[in-house]
């Protein structure tokens, strides 16, 4: 449990200047000047961004996982995001030019827990879900951990795996649903073999909920800790609205915890992945 005083204790609200905005495959890699905010960002944290401009009919912020943060650079502290132009908000963000100022709140949420010993780790990312894993890989590598990474997507072009990101990784496996690159099939099919081969001791994952659920099952079978970054629709991002909840086990009952405060990084074994059992419990 996170104690009340600790809620988002380093979150601030800033006007962040767009320093760079580049299309990388189907994604946009966007760099923001965030000054002091950068120093507080940990792998797994996210930022919440106002979208649509002044006349906007979009009243809610959008959450984006922090891809990288560097607290010093030629422009001061900066953070980088990987954004998929999906609906109205993300398309607007991807269309912002260098020099525009963006209203940003962060860093928010929990970050990935890092093992105290030099464990063998497996990092699993789906689509833009790979974003927060590269910064994590670096931290793990510096701690002396072995870092294996597996990235999957529906098709080759949708795997986000920049060259510089691969530096911290001992092995990188790719999977695609259509077989256009790497292993043909769902990411979860490749995992058991990787766990065995690399003697994985901790799993970290980020991606669509279906993928996280499948990984959780495997982690359970292998009895390995699994930290996953979930993605639920968030209205506020700061813990006040209760829309972003994820069902977790609580003495045989269901407890809904806020993924923006008690997440996005959560213990995969605590989450109740089976939607039907949740619905049955809530509406008997």
């Amino acid at each position: 449990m996170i104690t009340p005083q600790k809620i988002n204790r380093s979150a601030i609200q800033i006007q962040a200047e767009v320093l760079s905005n580049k299309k990388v495959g189907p994604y946009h890699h966007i760099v923001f000047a965030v000054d002091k905010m950068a120093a507080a960002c940990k792998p797994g944290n996210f930022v919440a961004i106002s979208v649509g401009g002044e006349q906007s009919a979009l009243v809610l912020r959008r959450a984006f996982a922090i891809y990288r943060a560097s607290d010093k650079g030629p422009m001061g502290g900066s953070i980088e995001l990987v954004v998929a132009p999906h609906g109205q908000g993300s398309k607007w963000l991807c269309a912002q030019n260098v020099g525009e100022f963006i209203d940003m709140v962060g860093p928010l949420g929990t970050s990935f827990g890092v093992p105290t010993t030099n464990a063998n780790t497996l990092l699993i990312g789906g689509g833009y879900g790979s974003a927060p894993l590269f910064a994590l890989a670096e931290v793990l590598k510096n701690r002396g951990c072995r870092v294996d990474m597996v990235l999957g997507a529906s098709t080759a072009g949708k795997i986000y795996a920049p060259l510089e990101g691969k530096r911290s990784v001992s092995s990188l496996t790719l999977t695609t649903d259509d077989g256009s690159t790497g292993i043909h099939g769902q990411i979860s099919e490749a995992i058991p073999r990787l766990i065995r081969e690399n003697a994985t001791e901790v799993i970290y994952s980020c991606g669509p909920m279906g993928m996280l659920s499948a990984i959780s099952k495997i982690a359970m079978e292998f009895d390995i800790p699994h930290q996953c970054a979930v993605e639920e629709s968030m209205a506020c991002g700061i813990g006040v609205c209760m829309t972003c909840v994820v069902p977790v086990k609580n003495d045989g009952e269901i407890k809904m915890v806020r993924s923006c405060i008690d997440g996005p990084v959560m213990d995969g074994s605590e989450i109740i992945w089976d939607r039907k059992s949740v619905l049955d419990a809530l509406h008997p």
Partner: protein
Amino acid sequence: MSSLDFSTKIGSKRFSNPIFTASGCASSGQELSQFFPLTEIGAIVTKSIMTKARTGRATPRMAETPSGMLNSIGLQGPGIDAFLENDIPWLVSNSAKIIVSIAGETVDEYGVLARRLRAVPGISAVEVNISCPNVENRGQVFACHPDTAIAVIESVRRNIGGELPIIAKLSPDVTNIVEIAQSVINAGVDGLALINTLLGMVIDTNTMKPKLAGKTGGLSGPAIRPVAVRAIYQVHQAFPNTPIVGMGGVASGRDAFELVLAGASAVSIGTATFGNPTAVLQIRDQLSELLLEKGITDFRDAIGFAHRGV
């Protein structure tokens, strides 16, 4: 620049300024206190609390809509015991002005909640949420009919004792909101909170099913502001002496001023906080600036001003 008396009153209680949080949009204050001290705002209105801990609805619980959003939280909360044990002491220790919102499934439950609150020090008022649309059946929306609304308020009044002001929170989803207001005023409320969310629905055109797990949800945000202004105007017109806590789509000082001119003695900020954690402070400052620009030095002179003169 001349100075502004920004204070306001609801029943017997005075608040240093008229900008409050809206119930369910600020939890119990701890999360917002990361961004500003809660003493900066007129009052924090806590998320509606029920007798027992409550899991709430399944997800998805929200959908963005044009200039608004739908929510169907289903009153998730810790229950009155944990609330009194954890949340109230924390708020008191942070010197926050507290308005406690309560919600029950039955008339008796409201009475039980009122009784639990009567001896609690540090509370400034009780907001009785009889208008939450996110319940299993519309019959539970007590604010839909005068008789059920009266029953709840009488139950609260009987149990709360003392001079804690009672504020009834009404739903705009009724044929005649003035009639409902009339009934709860007769039942002895000290103030009204207008408006709760409108019942709405979004259908996901990809899945071709309702987007929310609970199917319908409550519509809030700037989209509903004209409905809020109308409801406040109508009710203030009919009952100019009953203080109104106005809410519904306020996102700027101008918007807050609009509700005040319609008749609100205080303004709660809900959805705007989701878009901007410091919205309440910005709105407070913009409102005080606007008032001074207009030459208004006593906030109370602005309440219901749109009804006066030509």
